[in-house]
């Protein structure tokens, strides 16, 4: 299943030079975003195989056309419990550093162009102990939290050391 994304900002001839094109998606009532360049594809929920003794937010692994990748539950990563995944849930397949990973979210909302100047640094949130939020963007109605994907998947692998970023 591939979702048709709204393209309302695509019509403008060229995005400003200093603009970021961001894919936004929702977990509960919160909106998150990542650079569109990191997104490889978006697919519907698919059952995963759990991994023994992995971090809580690692949902397991799935087969994406012969490649095995791990799916991370964004809801769990931000401390909002475990997603009760159904067919309407979405896995955003992303390229992070040299790995491919899946991010389980509730739905994908939009693709938006935002000027770099509109990105504010993440406030020093004590609760974001893993440094998952890279910055914030104010859209008309929403606050979009830009994710540092590397931080989201960091604790998934073998080394389960809590690496809180320089706080």
């Amino acid at each position, binding site marked *: 299943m591939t979702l048709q994304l709204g393209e309302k900002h695509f019509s403008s001839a060229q995005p400003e030079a200093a603009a970021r094109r961001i894919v936004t998606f929702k977990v509960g009532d919160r909106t998150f975003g990542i650079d569109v360049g990191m997104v490889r594809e978006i697919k519907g929920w698919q*059952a*995963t*195989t*759990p*991994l*023994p*003794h*992995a971090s809580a937010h690692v949902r*397991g*692994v*799935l*087969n994406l056309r*012969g*490649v*095995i*990748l*791990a799916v991370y539950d964004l809801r769990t990563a931000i401390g909002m419990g475990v997603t009760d995944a159904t067919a309407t849930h979405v896995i955003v397949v992303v390229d992070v550093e040299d*790995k*491919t*990973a899946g991010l389980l979210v509730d739905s994908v909302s939009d693709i938006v162009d935002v000027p770099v100047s509109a990105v504010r640094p993440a406030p020093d949130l004590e609760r974001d102990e893993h440094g998952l939020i890279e910055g914030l963007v104010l859209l008309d109605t929403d606050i979009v939290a830009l994710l540092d994907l590397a931080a989201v998947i960091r604790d*998934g*692998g*073998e*080394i389960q050391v809590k690496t809180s970023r320089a706080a």
Partner: protein
Amino acid sequence: MDPLAELKQTFFQECEELLGALELKLQALEEGSVDPEDVNAAFRAIHSIKGGAGAFGCTELVGFAHVFEAALDHLRSGRVAIEDAPFSLFLRCSDAVADLVSAARNDEPATERPDLLAALAQVGQDRVSAPAAAAAPAPVAAAPAAPAKSDDAPPGIAALGNLLAMVEAKAGAADAPSTAAANDGWDDEAPAPAKPGRDVTLRIRPESDLFRRVIEPRVVLASLPADDIVSIMCDLSRVPPLESLDVTDCWMGFDVALRTEMSVEELHGLFDFTLAAEEFTIEQGDAAVAAAPAAAAQAPVSAPQPAPEPASTSEVPSTVAADLSAILAKLGPATEAAAQPDIQPAPAPVTPVHAAAVPAAEPAAARAAAVRAPANDQAAARQRQAVSVRVDLDRIDKLMNLVGEIVITQSMLVECVRSLPYDVYAKTAEGILTLSRQTRELQDHVMAVRAQPVKAVFQRMPRLVRELAQTLGKEVRLVLEGENTEVDKTIIEELADPLTHMIRNSMDHGLETPDERVEAGKPREGVIKLVAEHRAGRIVISVTDDGRGINRDRLLMKARSRGLVGADERLQPEEIDQLIFAAGLSTAEVISDVSGRGVGMDVVRRNVESLGGRISVDSEPGRGCKFTLALPLTLAVLEGMVIRCGDDRYVIPIASVIETQHLASTPIERLPFGQEVLRWRGEVTPLYRLGDVMGSMGTTNENIVIIAETERGNNVGIAVDEIVGQQQVVVKSLEANYGAVNGASAATILGDGLVALILDIDSMLRLAAHSERNTQSDLKMAG
């Protein structure tokens, strides 16, 4: 990459193979083989290296290889008995060639080895003079006045040069009266008979693969000194009819007439880079006009008897041997002049020549035979080359991946078919069965393409041991076993580093010096055994030495001082041994070049584990030490038993499964610390519940037990819910996009498209032990 660089890379790859072959053959010869084929193979290897090196302008390599080749040729020609040959020198030379190759490969300045060169030249020197003198006592003794005509011979063949001069003088004097009218064929055409030098006829008959060796006739001819060329005739008689003509083959031959002052040896040198020794002959048409004007120069062209087999004498390897056979060709059979009555009007043979010719004729026959054999070998070698193709590993990998996808698709099909109505099902199932058999076959074949004997790595080790033995002043014998054990190419490549480290470690830390060994009542010579075998679906390679074993006290002391082991921690002897794999530990008293920086074994362990392998050590103080390395046979597919536990399915490599049975039929007991054990074939076997170990979801009613084998050969029982089936699975890396998973070596995709973990028994047991310890400490804290 530009084409030349690509070719060069190919050349270096070939060099590695050739060097391997060279060393192997020399090794065999050193160990007492007297098989001439070994000598021929060694010669061919170095010759091919020289040829390629010439084409790519690696001058140092060419120079060295040339001298080496010449020395080996003495063996090939039987001039030096195989039993007497200095193979240890040759082995050191093959090491030197390897160094030159790697220097050329990395564009580094090459280290000169004048010592080895001198020693090699010596091989030629001593051995040549003796048989040459023996072969020609009669003509030398009979020569009344030998003119000093050795000026054209380099000092290395002085003996032959003298012989040549004497024989020429003798033959010339004897022939002169009757063949005064005879003329040289080239002199008729040569416009400049006054030019000093001798007439030489070059017959160039390249093998048909000349072009494919990236050599053009033009290049060959351009290497001749232009001023000396009298004429060049192209021989097109070998060109086949048009329908069977392959334009990539070379059919041309050339007859070049030269009047030159160059010696035969020097002429041979001109073609070193372009032509194989069998592809050209040099015939000295005549005694030099300038050198012996009074001696009726044209004389030797007379043929005292018809040539029995001209072709055989014209196939001569390019070394000093050429001189001898040139003389023989002249004295005895076979000059073209013999077949040309217009040049040779006086047919009457002259008896005096026989005096000189007869004693020399016997070695001529011997030479002809000796020369033919290698020529046949080369043809055979070329044939072998023709049936093998060099394929980029990347292409095989793509093929492999594709086959993997087919296997998955096929098992998906199998699942789909199950839901079909019966009548359709039967037919479809049959087709799918055939498909699966064919897929399996396809997979096996692709795997076979990638499989290689571990020999490729093992054969690098003798050199390592040789060099280390010298550096460390130890006497070591390396014993190789199971070199033909086949393993996937991907694994082969990963074996070299760990093996090198393991052998270094054994040589440096394990083995004692000869004196220490004698003191300990052992033979002076230490033994290192390198053994490869298949076990439990893995390749297990062990390095065993009969040295002093691990010094546990010192290792423990070091580990304590580095804080790796607590001061009051008590360790079992075996646990102490395993500390050798801890980072930053080295027990060598003196830090040496060889090992002892404490980066060896822990790096080895890390690398091996990243490949899904394991390394362990068993040591017996005073008796020796054994490192065991276990790696998967391939990183691509495995035969697996699919099992279910709770909601999850897993794959156990079939190779580690010994037996399955119902748990109910097996009495389970509990050891004091809670470990469950079962009696299996009279042995107490620990039992692990897969659901507990892997944290499987869903309720479990483990009523099947799988008896599996660990790498160390122990048996364990693993309790599971259900055995789903058995199938070949494509191994998919978990590390690529995630990371290592405890208890699993990799994952695979089952027929329904879902992922199943491939269990790794040893890693699972460690996981179990770990979680047990955690539970215990939890209990302690609670209590």
